Every structure is written in structure tokens, then in C-alpha cells.
């Protein structure tokens, strides 16, 4: 067993390289600088969300409510500006809402000890429902003149690179710094690896768990702002879409084990690249929607199976895994 042990990251990278090679040879127009930028641009928001999910999954949790954090606070910004509030005030309100939301998630999971899957499932519905009933007039919140200038967060280019890619890169750097350079990051890995051991050694695990969910919600909100800027509106109904599965797909495919404690930003980048390449290639080939879902489903299944082969559940992880 030990002799041929690739880790998942390497396997997925190999898959990516293979896909890339095949598309480059057989698909006219795939391997052009323009198309490469488009490819990245199309998955930048997904990648940013993947980073948020990664932080939580590394700490042995999961955040199903991420899409609500993506949709509702940025939607609030657009709605408030539409109603005549200033952009900074609206942004502040959105950030406060996001932090409050992250705190609720974190409190439920760390202190009330509700399993993360159920806690975030419920809070996500709560936030989306709050948005629908109390905050937004319509599901699609339109851009208004007060927002002018803000669209640069998601449109246009910086030094020739589309802005959304730059935003993804910035988010990567920030999360990488948090996970690798700070004590908090080390604590997240420790908690994900073995929460009981982490607590025994004196790591303040509950506050760190709260921190994870607050950071994840904030990153989700950031992704939402980039998305809203990029399409000049906030379709808050995206909460009902299957985007959250794509996010989980990115994380798992990239090789961040759902049992926690493993992986990092690089895994998210690789996962995002694979998805981006697949989506781009399938769009160029004009594969039908159903066909695309089939292919995505098969790939996710393969990734999960590979994950359980490579990171087999031992007694320790089987006992403690929430998911």
C-alpha cells in the first residue's frame, strides 16, 4: 500500500493536466490566452466560495449556509442603495449582518454543539427567508445609479487581468496567510485533526470555531459582492440553486478531506481549475445541460470514492466525523 501512494492532490492535478492537454489538442480555441482568462473568470466566484468552505472543512465542519451569505448581505447593499442610502453605509450594514450571521452559526456549532450540517442548513434558510420577506422587494435586486463605480469589483481588468481573477487571487493570499502564518490557522488545523486533543492541549477551540464561521461568512459576502458587481445585479434566488454542491465539489475534488485537518489554499485552486476547465470545455463543445450535470456528477462521485480510498476512515476519524 505504502509504495504507490499518491495523495489526492496529485491525482486531481494529473486529471486536470490530462483534461487540459486533451482539450488543448482537440478543441479549437481552447488554448488561447483569452479563453484561459475567461475560464478563470467564470470560476473565480466559485473559487472564492471554495476558500470559505475550505476553512470550515479543514476545521472539521461544513457550511451549507454559504450561499445565503453570498446572496443576502450583498443583496442588502444593492437594495439599500436603491432605496437611497449611501454606498458606504449600505456596505457597513451588510458587513455587520454578515458578522452577526457568522456569530450565530459559530455559536450554534461551538457552544450549542449542534452538528454543523444541520445548524448551517437551518441558518441558511433563516437568512434567505429573512432576505425574501423583510429585506428585498424582488428576488433579483437591480443595480442602481448609486452603485456606479462599484461594478469595477467584478468587471473590467487590472493590468490586463480580469478583476474577478484578481479578487480570487487576493482572497487566496488572505486565506493562505490566515491558515499558514497565524496561530489561529494552526489551531483550525489542530481542531480539524482531533478536536478533543486540541481542547485538552488548551486550544480555545470554541472561539476558534466561531471565528471559522465568521470568516467563512465574510468571504461568502465578498464573493457575493464580486458576483453582483460582475452581473450588475444580485439574483438572490441563487440560494435555491445547486451552487453549494459545486462549492463542495471544488473542495473535495481539490483534496481537502471531509474528515478535516488536511489541505489548504492550493487544493482549492486545483479544484477550481478542474471545474473551470471542465465547464469551459463543455461549453465550447456545446454539451447539453443534462449531459453537463451527468459529467459533473460522475466526477464528484469519483472524487469522493478516491477520497475514501486515500484517506480511509480509521477508528479515530470514524468516531469523530460529523459528516
Amino acid at each position, binding site marked *: 500500500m505504502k509504495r504507490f501512494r499518491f495523495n489526492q492532490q496529485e491525482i486531481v492535478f494529473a486529471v486536470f493536466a490530462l483534461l487540459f492537454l486533451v482539450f488543448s489538442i482537440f478543441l479549437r480555441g481552447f488554448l*488561447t490566452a483569452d479563453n484561459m482568462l475567461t475560464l478563470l473568470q467564470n470560476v473565480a466566484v466559485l473559487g472564492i466560495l471554495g476558500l470559505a468552505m475550505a476553512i470550515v472543512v479543514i476545521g472539521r465542519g461544513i457550511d451549507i449556509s454559504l450561499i445565503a451569505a453570498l446572496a443576502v448581505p450583498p443583496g442588502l447593499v444593492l437594495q439599500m442603495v436603491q432605496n437611497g442610502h449611501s454606498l458606504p453605509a449600505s456596505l457597513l450594514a451588510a458587513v455587520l449582518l454578515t458578522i452577526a450571521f457568522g456569530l450565530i452559526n459559530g455559536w450554534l456549532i461551538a457552544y450549542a454543539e449542534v452538528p454543523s450540517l444541520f445548524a448551517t442548513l437551518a441558518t441558511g434558510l433563516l437568512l434567505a427567508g429573512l432576505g425574501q420577506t423583510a429585506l428585498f422587494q*424582488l428576488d*433579483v435586486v437591480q443595480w442602481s445609479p448609486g452603485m456606479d463605480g462599484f461594478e469595477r469589483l467584478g468587471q473590467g481588468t487590472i493590468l490586463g487581468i480580469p478583476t474577478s481573477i484578481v479578487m480570487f487571487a487576493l482572497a487566496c493570499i488572505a486565506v493562505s496567510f490566515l491558515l499558514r502564518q497565524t496561530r489561529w490557522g494552526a489551531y483550525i488545523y489542530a481542531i480539524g485533526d482531533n478536536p478533543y486533543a486540541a481542547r485538552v492541549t488548551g486550544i480555545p477551540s470554541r472561539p476558534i470555531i466561531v471565528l471559522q464561521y465568521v470568516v467563512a461568512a465574510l468571504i461568502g459576502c465578498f464573493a457575493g459582492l464580486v458576483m453582483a458587481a460582475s452581473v450588475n445585479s444580485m439574483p438572490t434566488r441563487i440560494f435555491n440553486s445547486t451552487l453549494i454542491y459545486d462549492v463542495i465539489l471544488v473542495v473535495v475534488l481539490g483534496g481537502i478531506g471531509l474528515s478535516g485537518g488536511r489541505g489548504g489554499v492550493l487544493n482549492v485552486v486545483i479544484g477550481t481549475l478542474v471545474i473551470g476547465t471542465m465547464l469551459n470545455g463543455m461549453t465550447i463543445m456545446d454539451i447539453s*445541460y443534462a449531459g453537463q450535470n451527468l459529467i459533473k456528477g460522475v466526477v464528484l462521485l469519483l472524487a469522493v470514492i478516491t477520497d475514501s480510498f486515500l484517506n480511509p476512515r480509521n477508528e479515530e476519524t470514524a468516531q469523530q466525523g460529523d459528516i
Partner: protein
Amino acid sequence: MKHFGSPTKATVAALGLAAMTVPALAQQGLDEPFQKPFKEALAGKTVAYVPVAMNFDLTEGWYAGLKKELEPFGVKFVIRDANWNTNAGAQAVTSLISEKPAVIVVQNPDVQTYAKLLQRAENEGIYVIQINMGSAYRSSAFVGANWVEIGERQTEAVVKACEGKSNKVAIIQGALSAAASAYTLKGVENVLAKHPEVKVVSSQAADWDAAKAKAITQTVLKQNPDLCGIVGFWDGMDIGTAAAVKEAGLTGKVFVATSGGGERKGACELVKSGAFDLDMSYDVPTQAAQMAGTIKWLLSSGVKPGSIKGSEYTTLIPITKENADSQMACWNLSDLKK
């Protein structure tokens, strides 16, 4: 009394009185015999509204319009919001059948799911009015857009814009399961069949999702920078399509046709900004007024539900640069709610 002193005068007056009975009464006001039964037919009646979801311009607009027309007559409204869930909608219709409102106004998520239920409702004595998305069952009234026509007129405009250019077009569909999307596609196909010179380089479903529409359009534009037109299926989603066109610097070069309910921010403003070149509007307030008129007519007529059936296909308003500024082309939800 002095004036009636002489007998002749009295006779004349008496005759005159007799002859002038009607005009004399007219001065006191005349009872119009039909308004009372009409009011009675409407007062206290319940109209149940089952949209596929609230919170978007179409369903909010219909609701506001219906309420404005009917509530002054004492009609009560109940909403059963299916919230994009077909099962929840079917359950809502089922429970409404036992609650027996006078009218059910329903927007079908697809052709089949509610069909049997709506037939049962009419058998139970409830008028059923279907909006924009009809089911396989034809009920008392259908009020809504002709999706095939929408697809045809959008495509005709795109084909025309493509004359003398590359003749390459892309189609951004809605959700594959939605009949509105499938009907529109049929309209697109009808026109394309007549124009073999036009080549469809991409025809993909973006799930009514602006972000997906943008991603698809970006990729298509990179592959086909000489694309001359895009047929999109809903303006709420095609904001993304238009954003991709704008980012590629092709606004004005790629003709973007779409359709929607004609809400000002979602339609006219975007046509004015150049994001869309054509937005086929099915003018929600007019649809609401037609529905309200139909409800008034049905309730006051007393016809047996299901015994008469008819359709009111919406007259479409093509919103282009020419009329995007006019007050009539679009509507504001906030005004309709007032």
C-alpha cells in the same frame, strides 16, 4: 298650492304628473338594476393566488394589479406561494380545492403537474384562471404571453440584425424543465428553419441564472468574437448575458434580444443603457387588468365553472431604444402597489 287653483290647471298638472313620472323619478336618481347583483356577486368572495413564487416582478405585479382592481369590491385574497417548489404548489392547489374559494388564479410551473387538479377544481365549482404558463387542461380562462410568438419575434429581430454580418447566433435558454423555455425555443426554431444561412454556435440552458448566462456568453464570445446576435429567454437572467457582451466591448455589435414582464428597472432602464437591444415585454399590469376583468365577468355571469373556456393572449410590447423612454412601455412595481 296656489298654482293649482283652477280645475283645468289641476287636470293638466295631474296629466303632466302622470306623463312625467319617469323624468320626475330621474331627478331623484334611477336605480341601475344590474350593479347590485354585480356587487353581491363579488362581495365576500375569495380569490386564491398560486404563483410559482412571490418576490419577483411578474408575480408581485400581477398580485398588486389584481388587488387594486378587486379589493374595493370586497374580494378577499389569499396567496399560496409555491416558492419554486412544484410539490408545494400542487399541495396548495389541492388544499384550496377543499377550501373552495370562488376563483383560483394559478401560474403553472409546467404543463402537467397541476392539470388534473385544475380540472377537479372546476368540477368542484371553482373558476380557474391560468396566467402566462398554461397547463394541459384548458380552464375558464388563460391570460398570458404566447411564448412561441416571443421566441419568433426575438429571433426575427436577431436574424435581421445579423444580415450582412457573420450570421452566427447564440441561444441562452432558461431552465430545461420549464415549458416557457421550451415553447420559446420552439419559436426560435420556427424562424431559424426559414433562415438556413443563420448558424447557431451555442444553445445552452443557463437555468434562469444571470451568473451562468454570463459565463456561457463569455466563453461563446471568446470562441466567436464575430457573433452577431444572442436570443435570451428572460431579462432577469440576461443581465448576465449583457454584462458579458459589455465586458467583451461588443455592446452594439452583438444584438441582444430578451423578454420579460416590462418592469422599469429590469427592462426599460437596461434597454436605454444599451445592455439589451430588444426586450419583448408581456406588460404585467395589462395582464393583471385582463385577469381582474375576467374575474369580474365570470363571477357576475354566474356561468358554471368549466362550462366556457377562452384565452386572452397578451399583446406584446417590443421595448427598444425608441420607446424605452416613454411612460407607457414599462411600469414601476412601487407605483402599482400604491
